[in-house]
Every structure is written in structure tokens, then in C-alpha cells.
């Protein structure tokens, strides 16, 4: 009977059956019916309900790419709808569920962040705000992890200069990040490795940079557990500096004599 209605039934039958399926939780079956109704009901008041149910059916069946798209469309078309708050939340949640893990393209993550942000601004009284906030923070942390891992990769592949720049940008862009301590720690390690392995002509400047990096860390995390290791590395920096000064003195005395 379903296929008969789907293929041959008139629009009113399809509408009726789609709604029944939707109410009964048969979302997968309701989708093709709703999709066939979108055209014929164009410009008619029923379309509001159809669009909402179609978006929700996609959401319920786990097709979040499409549910985010249809909820977005619903929000744009029916700003006055009684379902608008729910749609706004589900749209954001769809983007959240569609977004892949941190190491892949984060376009959906950014869309989810934007959608949750708008939701929180528009419906501050809603009981869903707590959840929205939680997701918002989770997504933000995901972006932080992405940037942190990229910067860390520069360190791991021994592109120290790139790592230092990337960690600097990280700390500028993600104020108060939970990765801040780690970021500053690796920023120092990169500066240290670069300085210790440096060619003579740039050594002095790079040793200074390592010291600055260390000072900055101490200022922010005076109690850190990493300090023990870092102090050890700083000793190396100081030793290298002493050696460098020795070398410079030797060269100077040579050229004087």
C-alpha cells in the first residue's frame, strides 16, 4: 500500500500517509513521501509542516548533513513559526552530529558553533541552553585541539620556527584554552631545540628567544609540573650561552692580537 501511495497516490493521500508514518516513528518511509510533497505544496501553508517534518525525519534517521540543510531552510522560510526554537536547536545539533573529528575538515564544526551561538542569543531562557552551552564548549575545544595538533606536528617534524609561530598564533586565537600550558611548554621546547642546534651566526638571538619563552611560561604557570624538565633544558641553554660567549671572546682576542 505504501508503494502504491508513493508512486500513484494523489497529494492529499501522500500527505496523510507521510504524516501517519512520521507520527508512528517510521521516519525512513516518510522521507520519500515528504520529498514528493515539497514541490506540489510550494507556496501553500502546509509546506511549513512538511518542511519541518522532513527535516526532523532526516534528523531521526541520522542523516545529519541533510537535516541540518532542511532545518536551516525551515528557519529561513518561517521565521514566525511556532516550531522555530526547536528547529534552531535541531539545526545546530545536526551540524554538531555531522561534524567529523578534529583532524578533518571543520566546516561543519564552525557552522554548528555559529548555530549554537545564535540559539543561545535568541533563546536565553530556553531549558536547552545548558545543553547548547555544553556542545558549544565541546566544539570549541575540538577546534583548539586541531590547531594545537597542527602546531605540535611542526615541532615533531623539527620545523621549530614554524612550531613557535604556530603556538604563538594558537595562544592569541584561543585565549584561556585548556591546552595553553602544553602549548607554551612546546613553544619553549621548540625555541630550545632551535637555539641549541643553531648555526653560530643566529645562536645568540635564538638563545635569547628560548630564555624569553621560558620566562613567559614561568609567569603563567609558576606551579607547573613541567618546570623540572624545563629547568634542565634551561641549564643547557645557559651552558650553550656560556660556550658561545667563550667562542666570541676567543675570536675577538684573536683578531685583536
Amino acid at each position, binding site marked *: 500500500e505504501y508503494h502504491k501511495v508513493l508512486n500513484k497516490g494523489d497529494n492529499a493521500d501522500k500527505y496523510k500517509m507521510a504524516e501517519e508514518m512520521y507520527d508512528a516513528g517510521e521516519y525512513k518511509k516518510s522521507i520519500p513521501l515528504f520529498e514528493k510533497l515539497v514541490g506540489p505544496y510550494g*507556496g501553500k501553508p502546509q509546506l511549513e509542516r512538511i518542511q519541518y517534518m522532513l527535516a526532523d525525519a532526516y534528523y531521526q534517521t541520522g542523516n545529519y548533513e541533510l537535516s541540518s540543510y532542511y532545518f536551516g531552510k525551515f528557519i529561513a522560510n518561517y521565521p514566525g513559526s511556532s516550531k522555530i526554537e526547536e528547529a534552531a536547536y535541531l539545526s545546530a545539533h545536526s551540524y554538531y552530529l555531522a561534524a567529523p573529528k578534529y*583532524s*578533518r575538515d571543520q566546516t561543519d564544526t564552525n557552522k554548528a558553533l555559529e548555530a549554537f551561538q545564535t540559539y543561545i542569543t535568541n533563546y536565553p531562557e530556553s531549558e536547552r541552553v545548558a545543553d547548547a552551552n555544553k556542545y558549544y564548549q565541546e566544539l570549541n575545544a575540538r577546534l583548539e585541539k586541531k590547531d594545537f595538533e597542527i602546531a605540535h606536528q611542526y615541532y615533531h617534524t623539527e*620545523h621549530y620556527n614554524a612550531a613557535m609561530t604556530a603556538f604563538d*598564533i594558537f595562544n592569541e586565537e584561543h585565549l584561556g584554552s585548556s591546552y595553553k600550558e602544553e602549548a607554551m611548554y612546546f613553544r619553549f621546547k621548540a625555541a630550545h631545540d632551535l637555539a641549541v642546534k643553531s648555526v653560530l651566526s643566529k645562536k645568540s638571538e635564538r638563545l635569547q628567544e628560548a630564555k624569553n619563552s621560558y620566562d613567559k611560561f614561568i609567569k603563567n604557570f609558576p606551579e607547573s609540573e613541567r618546570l623540572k624538565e624545563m629547568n634542565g633544558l634551561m641549564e643547557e641553554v645557559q651552558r650553550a650561552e656560556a660556550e658561545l660567549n667563550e667562542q666570541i671572546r676567543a675570536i675577538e682576542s684573536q683578531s685583536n692580537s
Partner: protein
Amino acid sequence: QQAQDSLSTTTIDTVLPVTVIDTIPKTNDTIPKTSEKIDLTKKNYILGGITVVGNETISEQSILIFSGLVNGQAIKIPGDKLSSAIKKLWNSKLFSNVDVYATKMDGNTIYLEIAVRELSKVGKVEIKGIKKSKIEELSKELEFQPGSMLTENLITTTKNQIADKYKEKGFLKTKVTISTKPDTSAVNTENALILIDKGEKIKIKEITFHDNSMLSDNKLKKAMKKTKEKKIQNIFKSSKYIDDVYEEDLLKVVEKYQENGFRDAIIVKDSLSFNDDNTINLDITVSEGQRYKFGEITFLGNTVFTDQQLQNILKIQPGVTYNGKFLNERVKGDGTPESQDITNTYLDNGYLFSRVDLVETGADDNVIDIEVRIVEDEPATINKVTVVGNDVTNDHVLYREIYTRPGDLFSRSDIIRSIRELGQLGYIDPENIVPDVQPNYTDKTTDIEYSVAEKGSSQVELQGGYGGGAFVGTLALSFNNFSIKNLFNIDEYKPVPRGDGQSISLRLQASRFSRTYSVSFSEPWWGGKRPKGFNFSVYSSSQYAFDFQSRDVDKDQRLDIIGATIGLSQRLKWPDDFFTLSTSLNFQRFVLNDFFLSTFGYNNGTSNNINFTANLGRNSAGPSPIYPRYGSQFNVIAEVTPPYSSFNDKEYINLPDEEKFEWLEYYKINFMGRWFTQIYKDLILMSNAEFGFLGAYNQDIGVSPFERFYVGGDGMATGQFDGRQVIALRGYPNSSLTSFAGGTVYNKISFELRYAITLKPSASIYALTFLEGGNSFDSFKEFKPFELKRSAGAGIRVFMPAFGLLGIDFGYGFDDIPGTDEISGWQTHFIIGQQF
């Protein structure tokens, strides 16, 4: 929109019942109706009610929503709200007419009527005048579809669209008419008939140049790349006339003059005349002007590079014929990624904000002095580097291939290198990598975002076939962007765990007479620190003999081979970072049980091959590994076994073969070189030279019967068990240029002209013609490097990610096949998989 301009200013009359208070003309282009002007001051009203008339398919409620008017609201008449309501209705593009009337006035309350006329919709569309298959194609392209709103605009654009389409194909006299008539079965719907009269195809008969004395007619005709006369010598070129292309070609004529020093040359006039035989003549009058020379060239504003350095890049000496195009190319670039010009030299050294301008400072006595004015600005540092579009591949796999890194100076060539490296990965579409440079002028930094698109890279081969007198089943899986760490992570199975750039392949092949199993794995960045590749593979195969008495397979007569390879490869920094060194340790064990193999001197016994292989390669070819357009590939490969015979005191000369070859000893050297040269756009020349030599440590043992060279044919290695190296030489039957025992030295050169037909990610197709020669010899003493067996031919290659490379070549061998007196003649070769 025009609606705004055509809103007529009308005022309201206190005398009711019906007065036009605002109106929209029927179509955009008719002149607005002017209504009688009745003087009335603006007044505020309360909207008491709205009625809608004239609507047929669109509900009253929808129209009210479109208008944005709500009962009970305050409204000024005339006023903004009413105007905007009409505008909104108009913008919905559903109506051909919108009028608003005041129907009743009750004190301060006003009642309005919105009278609309809905636009007709397109019903059935019929296209006539072209072939049926073309009708289908065309009807998909058109915006003119059943259900579209039938506006004048739609009719006009559709007519133009179709006419242009056919004019581009040379049907210069194409006429399109669209007639509509109401569909009686549906409301407000009109059926349409699109009538296309292509007329005859118009070709160019003659192109005549007037007033040209310095450059010949032929030279100028040649300069017109796509506008050609209908003549025998233009048989491969189209002689149809296309307006846009003709305009471009006129510019090419001017360019041709400019290249030859005539910088003032212009086209004075050009005309087109029809002949009776569906051809046209083109008449082009030029004014050549004088021929100029380069005078003094001065550089201004350069501090980073000296005049001499810039002069070396410019490559123009005072006194040579003026060539505006060349000058521009040397200063601003010729549009290719490899262009070495002044602007790009600055861009490669961080000067993203630099500007290079050309100024002609004097033109006395036909000598043009040039000033190259340079504003260097400060070098730009790269700030943030991002990748978007990687839905499958993890960041770390992509970022490690990118040469522009935070904190580095901006460099255009680093971006080009990054695109090449990403394109080489095999799972990123090389033709679709877009770098977006986002400069920030205030702090002299720039962000760079690479937009990439993933492409399928897994290959599945499941086939059954009839070969060697028996059914052969093959199952082969290869995944090129595998993620081994997610092997046990169910969430990542989509349908296999992907995204870490590893590759894994499995192959099972079985028939009545053989079994082969193999597994291999490779990780291009072992440990993630350096591009140090690791690979590992194991395989096992068994061959069974046919028993002629029982007419069945006899599994007691068999050849078993097991093998394993472990290898490391890494990119070198010296001499440059296109170099790679790969080394591998290989083990192979052959066990023969009453098994006859033609190249072996024994039927029972065991041979072991433990060898170490080193491959020094340089690969700068790019951008795509499937269709390289530039660069080169070189490989020097040495394969050596330990010299067992030096350590033991065996009298090898008297030993039977199974003992002589129990532990194989040999050394083998291969050299291969390939060059890719772009001839013109998608036309690429591939030149290839190769050489191989197999030697023995101990003359008592002689050269190993394994690992030999077999030259001739399609180059595909199938059904051999002795580690032979099969070398393609098209135009000759497979392995026909080598003696039965196999060659110990070979060389080969070939030239292949390739032309890309399409390079879409779903399928890359190119056509090729080749010229090649090669030969193999049984011993180095006989080696005559110039005695080559020659061939020529043509073919086609199709690469589809799901199937790999497929191709067919038709080759003609000019020389004798050894052992016969006949020249090889035409041979057909089918190619499956990549050839080397």
C-alpha cells in the same frame, strides 16, 4: 529591480468605492500607466481588511504573507508600507500584474483589495528542428522547463541561449522561435513549442588581409589559431566561424605584430560577407605602423636585487627588435607555474606586496626606452596555514606535504611545490587543489588556505577468467589511504578505516594449477617525523603440474615460492629534496618437486635468493602522477646478493645446477630516466631511456638463470616464476626479442607524445603516439647499444581510480624478430596497470 522605478505615483480619492491607489505595470518594459491625479494630502489609516482577487493557483493567504500586510496595522496612504508590499509581491516573480485598490473607507479605517494576475506557467515543452538525441540534451540544459514562470525575459534568454549554442558550432544563421498556447487541461498554463532552424553550417572560405606589407598573409593566418580557411592543409582544424573565437584571434594578429616590433599595429577594420555556398569571407584591414627596437632599460626602486640580477632575468638587450609580449612575459610572467620572471622572483622571495610596473619612457627614432618601476615593500611572513576540504584524510598527512609553514617568508614556488606534493599523494584530486593567499597588509603577513578535494583511491579487483586451460579467480583489494591504527575502531569503517595515508593490499589468486597469496603494507612517514617510508610484504605461491596420464592436476609435482620483503625509503635533502633513497632486503625461496621449468637446469631442488636492493631516485615530475606535465624521473637501482662462493671452497664448475644455484649469487644494475616536456598546453612529450645489466661474481657458476631481462611486447609480467624482469617494447610479441634463456643486458629508448583528452578525477584519458627502440643480449660481450629493434605506433590510456590504468597500443615493429626473417609488423598490446 525595475519594479521600484515603475511604481507609479498615484494619490487617493476620497470619492469611493474604487480608486486605483497604486499599481504595477503588466511587464517590466512597458511604460507605467499614469492614473489621474487627484490632490490629497497624506493621511494615516488603520487597515481594516484586505481582499485578494485574480488569484488562480496561489492561495489568498500566501499572497497576504508575501505582501507583509496585516489587518489592524497603521498604514499611510500613499506610503512606504504599501509600496513595499507591492514590491514584495512583484519580487516573488509569480505575477504579471499587481494592483491595489481601496474598496471602502470607514472613517479612519481603510479596506484594500489586491488584484493580481498570475504569470502563466510553462506546461509541456516541445522542441523541433534538431535530432532527437540532441533534443534530450538541450532540454536538460535549458532554464525553460515545465513549471517555470513564463516571462518575456525567459523567452528571450532561452532564444538567445539556443541560438548562441548553435552559432558556436558554426551554424551562423540559426533562428529560434518560441510560440506558446494555453493548455486547456490546466489552470493558467501554456504549452510551448521551441522551433530551431539551424540552417546550413557556415564555413570560412577566405580570409583576406589588407594593407599588410611587413608580415605575409600566411604568417597572419597562422597567428589566428582557431579561425581557419576551409582548405586541405587545415584538414585537422575546424574552419567554422565563431564570433568570440574570431575576436580572440584578431587580438592574436595584433599580438603577432607586437612580437615583431610593430607595437602600434592595430586592426583598422574587419568585415564578414556571406557567399552563396554557405561560406563566408573575412576581410581584415590592418595598420602596421613602424618597427621598433628596445632602447635603454632602467630599473627603479630595486634594493633587494641588483640591476645586473634583474637584467639576467629580463634577458633583453638594448637594440633588439621590440617585442611587447616577450617583455611582458619577462616582467610579469607567462602564466605557467615555472615562469622565471621579475614579478615572480620577488614573489618567490617573500615580497608578496611588491609591485612591478613597466613604463615606456621614450620612443625616439623607433627606439623604445623602458623603465621597470619596482615597489618592493616589505617581505611578507606566513602566518596561519590551513587546509579545508579533507573529509577523509587526517590533517597530519596533508600538513606534512605542505612547504609553506608559519613563520616562513612567503614564497610562490613553495606553494607550487605544495600543490605538487599534495597531488602526488593519490587520494587528493591534483587538478582541484586551490591555494588561497589571504594577505594582511597592516602587519605584513599572509594566511594561506589550501582547499582540497578527496578522491577515491581504493581499488577492488574481483575477477574470474579462463587462463592456461583453467578457471582463474582473483580477488585483489588495495586501499591507498588506509589507517592501520583504526583497524579495530568500528566507527572509522566507512567502509574501511581511511585517512592516515598508509596503503595496504591483499591479493588472492587461485586456479586448478596455482595458488598465490600476498599481503603488503606501506607507511610513507614511518614515525611521522620524516618522509621515511616503510614497507613490508609477504607472499606465497604454488604451481602444480598437469599429469598427462590422469589428465588431471598433480599436486605432488609442484613449485612452491615463498618470499618476504622489508624496505625503507626516505627523501634526501642533498643534492636536492626531490631525491629519494630506498633500500630493501628481499628473500625468496623456490622449492621444486618433480617440476619442469624451461629456464631451470633441474627438476628437484631448492634455490634461495637473499638480496639487498638500493634505489636512488629523483622524481620532480608533476603535478599529477597519472599525467605529468613537467619534470623528470631518474632511478639507479642496484641489487646484490652475498658472494657465497667466495666463502666456501666448493668446486662449483663440476656441481650440478641444483647445487650451483642453491644460494643464488648475482648483481644487477638498472638505470631508468624519464623526462616530461610540455609542448603545448595538454600536449606532453615523454622521453625515456633505460639500461639493465646482470652480472656474476664467479665465472664457474655463471650468470644466474633467475632475474634475467626479457624484452618485447606489453611489458606485463605474468606467469613467470624466475624473478625475470619484463621490458615493454611495443610492436613486437611478448619477450620475443630475447633468447629463451633470457638476456643479461638490455637497453631501450622511447619517445611518447601524449595528449590529454580529459583529466577528471573519475577518469583520466589520454592518447599517445610513440617511437621506441630497444634490445637485449645474452652476454655483455655481445652488447651493441646501437643495434636497436625499432617500432612506432599509437594508443590510448584510461585511468580510473577504481580500476587503475587500462590501455591499448597498436605498434609497428620495423625490424626482424630474432630467429625469423620476417619483420614484426603490426602488433596490438593491451595494457593493464602502470608500466615502467
